[in-house]
């Protein structure tokens, strides 16, 4: 059963940056945008498995560090013309603490 787990405080994720959560099912990338929204995606690009957490965050997108695919942070979908999707995880911030549902 998935449950909400506290992973860090929002300050521990840099703006326009990310952190990696090591879960039993694999790594999860947690992103923070310039407007302090947070998103969580499986840390694997649908293209060739690149670690999305290591990419550059801009707007609500991240660019994969390996071959430059862009993924939408809110849906995990690749930006056209590329096609593919990385799994999304529910995430929320409550009084400065970040909770991830896994």
């Amino acid at each position, binding site marked *: 059963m998935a449950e909400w787990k506290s992973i860090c405080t929002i300050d521990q994720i840099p703006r326009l*940056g990310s952190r*990696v959560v090591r879960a039993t099912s694999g790594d999860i990338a947690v992103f923070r945008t310039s407007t302090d929204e947070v998103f969580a995606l499986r840390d694997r690009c649908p293209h060739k*498995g690149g670690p999305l957490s290591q990419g550059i*965050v801009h707007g609500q997108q991240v660019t994969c*560090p*390996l071959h*430059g695919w862009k993924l939408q942070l809110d849906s995990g979908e690749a930006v056209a013309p590329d096609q593919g999707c990385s799994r999304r995880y529910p995430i929320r911030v409550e009084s400065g603490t970040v909770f991830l549902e896994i």
Partner: protein
Amino acid sequence: MSKKKLVMVGNGMAGVRTLEELLKIAPDYYDIAVFGAEPHPNYNRILLSPVLAGEMTIQDIILNDHQWYAEHGITLHLGKKVSRIDRVKRRVIAEDGTEEAYDRLLLATGSTPFMLPIPGNELPGVISYRDIADTDAMIDAARRYGHAVVIGGGLLGLEAANGLKLRGMDVTVVHLADWLLERQLDETAGRMLQKSLEERGLKFLLGKQTEMLVAGESGRVAAVRLKDGVQLPADLVVMAIGIRPNVALAEAAGIHCNRGIVVNDTMQTYDPKVYSVGECVAHRGIAYGLVAPLFEQAKVAANHLGNYGIGRYTGSVTSTKLKVTGIDLFSAGDFFGGKDTEEIILNDAAGGVYKKLVIQDNKLVGGVLYGDTADGPWYYQLLRDGQDIHEIRDHLLFGQAHVGDVGHQGHSKAAAMADSAEVCGCNGVSKGTIVKAIKENGLFTLDDIKKHTKAASSCGSCAGLCEQLLSATIGGAYTPAASNRKAVCGCTDFSHQEVRDAIRQQRLLSIGETMRFLEWTTPDGCEKCRPALNYYLISTWPKEARDDPRSRLINERAHANIQKDGTYSVVPRMWGGLTTSAELRRIADVAEKYQVPTIKVTGGQRIDLLGIKKEDLIGVWKDLDMPSGHAYGKSIRTVKTCVGAEHCRFGTQLAMDMGVKLEKMLFDMYAPHKVKLAVSGCPRNCAEAGIKDVGVIGVDSGYELYVGGNGGIKTEVAQFFVKVSNDAEVMEYAGAFLQLYREEGFYLERTCHYLERVGLEHAKNRVVDDAENRKALHARLLAELKDAKDPWAERIAGVEKNEYELLSV
């Protein structure tokens, strides 16, 4: 605030491109309504010839389908011709009575073909060549009749003639001038073209004037009579002698017109609420008929309509390409030349190759290519850039491949490649895939190709080839931007130079400030512009602008090289390629402790530990106890050395010692791209200094310095820079040259590309000839690197700790 209302009259390529540009920058500014006289949505008019030739279908060339208009909330009035503009009440009225009110009006009424004023020009079977209806009429006629006469041997006329011939008609082209395409080709090339078209079965009557068109019994045209009395059988007559801007509507509304609708550099007409773009426009007295200038106009018009108010259109240099499969010709600029110009000509009549380049004041001003047009885009770029070509003049005629480029950029001839041939070796994209994407998605720029096919989006060495494919597929519609005018990325229209200038002149100190000042169109930029801005800020204001780790690509942020499986590689610094037994022992211990799967000696004389997990990086660095080798950065990488006079019986200078000194001087130097040096102790050059950004070769009397070499994508032999007599001078000249590159180079531009852009002469003037400037450059470099810190040591001490730590649940 309620939206303003924009009405566009004319639904062609220039107009719709304006809307696309406008929607990109100001999507919510207007409610838009469009009137189109044709019953079709916007299609790619320049691909009508392939449709006529049977190589494509109408469906293939639709650029914006009905859904596009719907998605953007655009009201589309198709098949409705606007009959009147009421400028007082600001509304347009169509023939069927449809009305739309406007706050801004965009006239994109295009042009109409010019019909010869001769008897019979209104007979059935007499058409022009302009739109889908004309194309359909020709395809239909080819099915039912045998003889066609095309009047006019220009681009359109020849494409029409070729298409009709391919559809089985007997085709004669009647042309007034003495050779074909007299406005695009000189006589020699015109004759060669005629010969190859005649081999395909087309017939030509040159220097002939048409007197009248004769009707047959059915009332349809049956013959063409020439002034010299000759009569040609003709069931179909296509007039392709020129176009006329459609100005009637504007003129009737009292908007000033001469050859076209007169606009200023912002594409505004004499009525400030009315803008105009496309073939209907006269800008500085010129009406353009090719699509590339129209797209430039579209961009400017959109900028002003969108209330940005910064673009200016200042006219275009155009190039020409005939879209007849299997015939390669290209021309651009002033290819006739005059008394102040010089010509370089290659004429191989039997081989079917002709090249003529026209040069004025050491600049290429025009050219004609026939038979081998692979270098057309390159010449066109040189022409647009106004680049000084005297350094490459000897080789100019032989093309880009002969000016030192052994990448596959200029080598393969795109047109001759098989569809299955691989163009982009990085992403495995074939020629067929690219050509298909260009046609089906209506691509016009190299960036479009990168986005849609991924070709040229990795190492970029096939960019030239992709440009050739664009040029071959869409012809004159392809115009490369001048190199120093290319926008940084899709987030802005500003070029690297403009961004650099703004940062310096406006004293911009942060990425956010720069983006705000230059009105970036995206909130945080992207992975292309942020690293570039970060570099420009730090290199312009070294002590004031703060480095932004979030605007560094991962390798520079993590200070290690990411590998395909997400692990990292670690390359410790070994000054000048020298190491010790103690260091080697520590490396061996680290390799065992962290179970490093691969240990490799690099091309730059270092040792690479591959397969390190990110969370182990700090531990690895700590145990190595060696400084960062910066093998991951846009920074000084390595100074490679031979053993030099220290050991070698041929050595003339202490190469290892010189190499170590240079490497220590440059430690932690951030640059537009990676920088590699080499020092050899004698001209045998065992350190391969000839392919380095700065190569130093010891000779008996001192050192020779070479710059701009490159062993990568674009193998480039370094060029001789200066001869110096001692070690201190090597440091000063090499340091000053690199500082010049750091201050002037565009982000991701290697020294060879930088020198190609600014010219070796420029670098010599600033560094070799101007002693004062050289010393100042060198001093700035030293001042900036004075407090250089080892990034690994900093991170061992806790800097950017979060970067390396995992979160757990």
